[in-house]
C-alpha cells in the first residue's frame, strides 16, 4: 500500500517564469516529508506535478517503481493511485459524508461489499460514523478535514499528498487536528508528501523537511538537523525565527557588519558569512565571557517565560530571549554557548 517516490530533475515554467528548477526529491516508503517554503517557492507546483494535475516541462517521477512521468507516456492523474487532501478539502457538496467516501471507491470498480467495508472502516477510523448522512455544509471545519482524510484512506492510495490542509482552521483547532490527522496517517503507514508554509507544522509532522526556495531545495533533512545545522542564512531565517547576523570571518574570528568586536568561531574559511542566532541560545555574559556580543535594545515584548528583545548589532536587528525586561536604548551584552556559533553562507 505504501510507495516510494522519486523525482528527478523536475523543471517547470509557468508564464515564462521558472517555478521548479531541476529539482530532485526522494521519499521512502512510509515516510512523511514536508515541502516547506514561502508562497511562490514552488512547493504546491511540485505537489501538483507529483499528483499529475500539471505536467513538468522535464524530469521524471517514479511512484512505487513505476515511471508516471518522464517515460514513454505520462500516466494520467486518475491512474496514479494518489490521495490528496486539498487546502479547501474539495468535498463534493452534493454528496453526504458516506457518499463522498463511496464515490471515490466506485471509480475504482470495486464490488459493492468491498466498497461498504472500506467506507465503514474509514468512517470508524476517522470517528465519522455519526456524521455519515450529513452533507459537507453541515460539518465544522475540523469535521470536513476528517472527511477529506477518511476519503483518501478509504481509497487506499499508494501515496498521499497534503496541500496546506490546516490553513483553513483557526489556531486553537489546528494543533488538535494536526495530531489527529497524523495519527490516522501513521496508523495506516502511508507515504506522505505534505505542503506547508508553517515551519512549526512541518517540524511536528515530518520525518524529513524539504525547505524550498525559488524552485530549488535549499535543504532536505530531518527536523533536528535543520534546527541544529541550517545549511544557509535563508534556511536559518525560515526555521524557528532564527536571526542571521551578517559579518566577516577572518582568522577564526567573526566580526558583525558595522561593529569592531570579533567573536571567536571555529570556521576555517575566511570571507563573508552569517552567524546563526537562535533566540533561546542567548546567555548572560558571565556564562561564556570569551564568547560575547553586545547590542542596543530597540524593542521588547513580554512573553510569559521570558522577554523577547530586539537588539541592534551594527546595522542588523536580531532577536534574543532574555530573563528580564531591559530598558529601551540600553546596551546589552550576551554570550553564546561554544556549540552555538554556527556560521553559514547566504
Amino acid at each position, binding site marked *: 500500500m505504501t510507495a516510494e517516490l522519486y523525482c528527478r530533475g523536475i523543471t517547470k515554467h509557468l508564464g515564462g517564469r521558472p517555478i521548479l528548477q531541476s529539482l530532485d526529491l526522494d521519499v521512502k516508503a512510509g515516510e512523511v516529508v514536508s515541502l516547506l517554503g514561502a508562497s511562490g517557492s514552488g512547493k504546491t507546483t511540485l505537489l501538483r506535478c507529483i499528483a499529475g494535475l500539471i505536467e513538468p516541462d522535464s524530469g521524471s517521477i517514479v511512484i512505487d517503481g513505476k515511471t508516471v512521468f518522464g517515460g514513454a507516456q505520462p500516466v494520467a492523474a486518475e491512474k496514479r493511485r494518489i490521495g490528496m487532501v*486539498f*487546502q479547501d478539502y474539495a468535498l463534493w457538496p452534493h454528496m453526504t459524508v458516506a457518499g463522498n467516501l463511496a464515490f471515490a471507491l466506485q471509480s475504482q470498480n470495486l464490488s459493492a461489499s468491498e466498497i461498504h467495508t472500506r467506507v465503514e472502516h474509514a468512517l470508524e477510523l476517522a470517528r465519522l460514523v455519526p456524521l455519515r448522512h450529513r452533507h459537507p455544509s453541515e460539518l465544522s471545519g475540523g469535521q470536513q478535514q476528517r472527511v477529506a482524510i477518511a476519503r483518501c484512506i478509504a481509497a487506499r492510495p499508494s501515496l498521499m499528498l497534503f496541500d496546506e490542509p490546516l490553513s483553513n482552521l483557526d489556531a486553537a483547532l489546528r494543533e488538535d487536528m494536526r495530531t489527529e490527522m497524523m495519527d490516522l496517517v501513521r496508523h495506516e503507514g502511508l507515504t506522505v508528501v505534505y505542503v506547508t508554509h508553517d515551519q512549526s507544522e512541518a517540524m511536528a509532522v515530518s520525518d524529513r523537511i524539504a525547505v524550498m526556495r525559488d524552485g530549488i531545495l535549499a535543504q532536505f533533512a530531518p527536523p533536528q538537523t535543520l534546527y541544529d545545522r541550517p545549511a544557509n542564512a535563508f534556511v536559518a531565517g525560515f526555521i524557528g525565527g532564527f536571526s542571521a547576523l551578517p559579518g566577516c570571518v577572518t582568522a577564526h574570528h567573526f566580526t558583525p557588519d558595522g561593529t569592531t568586536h570579533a567573536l571567536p568561531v571555529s570556521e576555517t574559511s575566511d570571507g563573508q558569512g552569517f552567524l546563526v542566532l537562535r533566540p533561546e541560545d542567548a546567555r548572560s555574559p558571565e556564562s561564556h565571557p570569551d564568547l560575547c556580543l553586545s547590542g542596543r535594545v530597540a524593542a521588547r515584548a513580554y512573553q510569559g517565560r521570558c522577554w523577547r528583545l530586539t537588539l541592534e548589532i551594527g546595522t542588523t536587528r536580531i532577536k534574543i530571549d532574555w530573563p528580564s525586561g531591559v530598558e529601551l536604548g540600553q546596551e546589552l551584552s550576551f554570550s553564546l554557548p561554544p556549540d552555538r556559533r554556527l556560521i553559514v553562507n547566504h
Partner: protein
Amino acid sequence: MASTAFVYLVFFLLIGLPLVLVLMQVIFADVFDPTQPNLHISFGPLSRIFIVPRVYSAILHSVELASLVGVLATLLGGAFALIVQRCDIPLRKTVGVIPWIAFLTPAYLKTVAWVLLMSPGGYLSEFGLLPPLTGSLFFAFPGLALIHTLGLFPFATFIIGTALRGLGSEMEDAARLGGVPLWRVWLRINLPLLAPALALSFIAIFAQVLSDFGLASTIARMSNFNVLTYEIYAATSSYPIDFPLAGTQSLVLLLLVTLAVLVDRLLRRKDDLKLISGRSRPSRDYRLGHWRWLITGLALLVALLALFLPIGAVIIRALTRTLSDGMALHNFTLANIIEASSLHSPAFAALLNSLRYAGLGAIISCAAAVLLALQLEGPGKFMRSSVMSLALASVAIPGIVFGFGYILMWNRLPIFRDSLFPHYGDSSLLITGYVGVAVPYALIVIMAAIGQLAPSLNESAKLFGAGTFRRVMRITLPLIALSILTAFMLNFIHIMFELPVSQMLIPRTESPAPIYILRLLNYDKDGLACALSLISMLIAGGASLVLWLAFRWFAARNGAATNGKWISTPSLAGDVQ
C-alpha cells in the same frame, strides 16, 4: 486544440458569419444581388448615411431617443434605488419590488397596453383622463421616451442600487461629522463616487433603446418616428428590397452599440476598483419627515404607470369585445379568451408553435452552452475569458441585425441555401436563429456557474480515478444543475416573447405567437391579441414554475443544489449505491 477550434466554429457559424455577411454589403454592395452577384467595391451604401434623409434621420432619432431615455431612466431608477435603500419611507418593501416586476413584464405587452390606453377612443380618453391633444403628443417622441423610461428604469435601479450598497455611509458620515451639510456631501462625495455607476446605467439603457424592436415596430412606426432597427427591417422586407442599405444601417447600429459596450467594460473595471469594499457597514436611513408620504406616493404613481395601468389595460381588453365600448358591462366577454385557448384556433396554434420553438430553442441552446462550457474547462484562463467576452459582446448585438444576417446566410450563400436543414422559410431556420441569439445568454450563466466551482472538486475526483464522463455526470452537472435550469428558463421566456428574429425569419407556415399578435394588432383584433398575450404569459410563467418545482422535487431526492444551498436528505444504506 480541437476543443478550441470547435468552440470558435460554433460561434462563427451561429454569430460571426451572419454578422460578417451583414457588414460585407457596406463595401460590396452587389454581393447578394439576385441576378448578377459580384464583388465590386462600392462606397455607395456608406454614402447614403449622409445623403438619404430617411437614413440619417433614423440614426439621429435613435441616438436622440436612446440618449434621452438613458438620462430619464437613470434619474428615475437612481431615485428608486435611493429611496428604497436610504430613506425611511412607508411601504418600503412594496416599493422595492416594483422595479423587479416591471423588469419581468414582457416589453411588447406594455407597448400594446399603452396603445390601448392612449389611442383616441382608448381607455384613458374614455375616463376623460386624456385631453385631446395628449394622444397625438404621446404617439411621438415624448410618448416613446416615456414608455421606454418606464420599462427600462429597473436597470438603473439595479446598477445604482448595487453601487449605493457598496458605498455604505462611512465616507458620508466622516464628512458630516466634519460639519459638511448634506447637499454638499452628495455633491462632493456621494455623486462623484457613484459617477461610474450612473454612467454605466446610462450606457446600458442607451444600448437597450438602440437595440429595441418592439416599440420601434409599433408606436414608433405609428408615430412616423423612424428608428434604425425598424428601418433595417423595412429595408429587408418592403419592396424594393435593399440589402446594402440594411447592411449600412446595421453597421451604424453595431458601431453605436459596440461603443456603448466598450465604455461599459471600461467603467466596470474602474467601478470595481472604486466601490467594492468589504469594510462598508449598512448605511443609516435619511429621515424624510412629512415628505416621506409624498415620495411614497410618487413611487406608487410610477408603479401605476409602469405596471398596473398597462397590465390592467391588457386584461380588460382581453375580456371585452371592442375598445370603443370601453368598460361598459355589455362589452365584457370571454370570447377572446376562449378563442385564444381553443385547441383548433389559429391563435392557439401560434401559441403552441411558440411553445415548441421556445422549448426546442432553449433545450438546444442550453445543451450547446453546456458542451461549450465543458470544452472550455480544460484550456487556460485566456481562452475562457475571451469566449466569455465574445458571449457578452454577442448579447449586445441587436436581434434585428442577427435576423438579417441569418437571411443573408441561409437565403443567399449557396452552400447554406441548398442545405436541407435548417432550411430558409421553415421553422428549422427560425429555431436556429433563436439558438444563435440564446446561446450567448446560456453560455454566460453556465460558464459563470462552472467558474464558481473550485477546481479542486474535479481534481480530487480525478485523483480517485473518476474518468472525464463520470466527473461531468457526477460532479460538474449536479453542481451546476440550478444554473442550467436558470439558463433554460431565461431562454425559454426570452424566445417566447422574442420579436426581431421572429419577424425576420418568420416561417411560411407555423407563425410564432409574437408575430401573430402583431398581425392581430394590425388587423384591429386587439382583444384577441391581448388575450393571446395574457395566455402566453401565463403559460410561459406556469411552465417555468412547474419546471422549477420539478427541479426542487428532484433535487430534494438527490441532494443537488437549490438556491445555492445543499438539501440534506437521509441517504440510503450507507450511500453505497
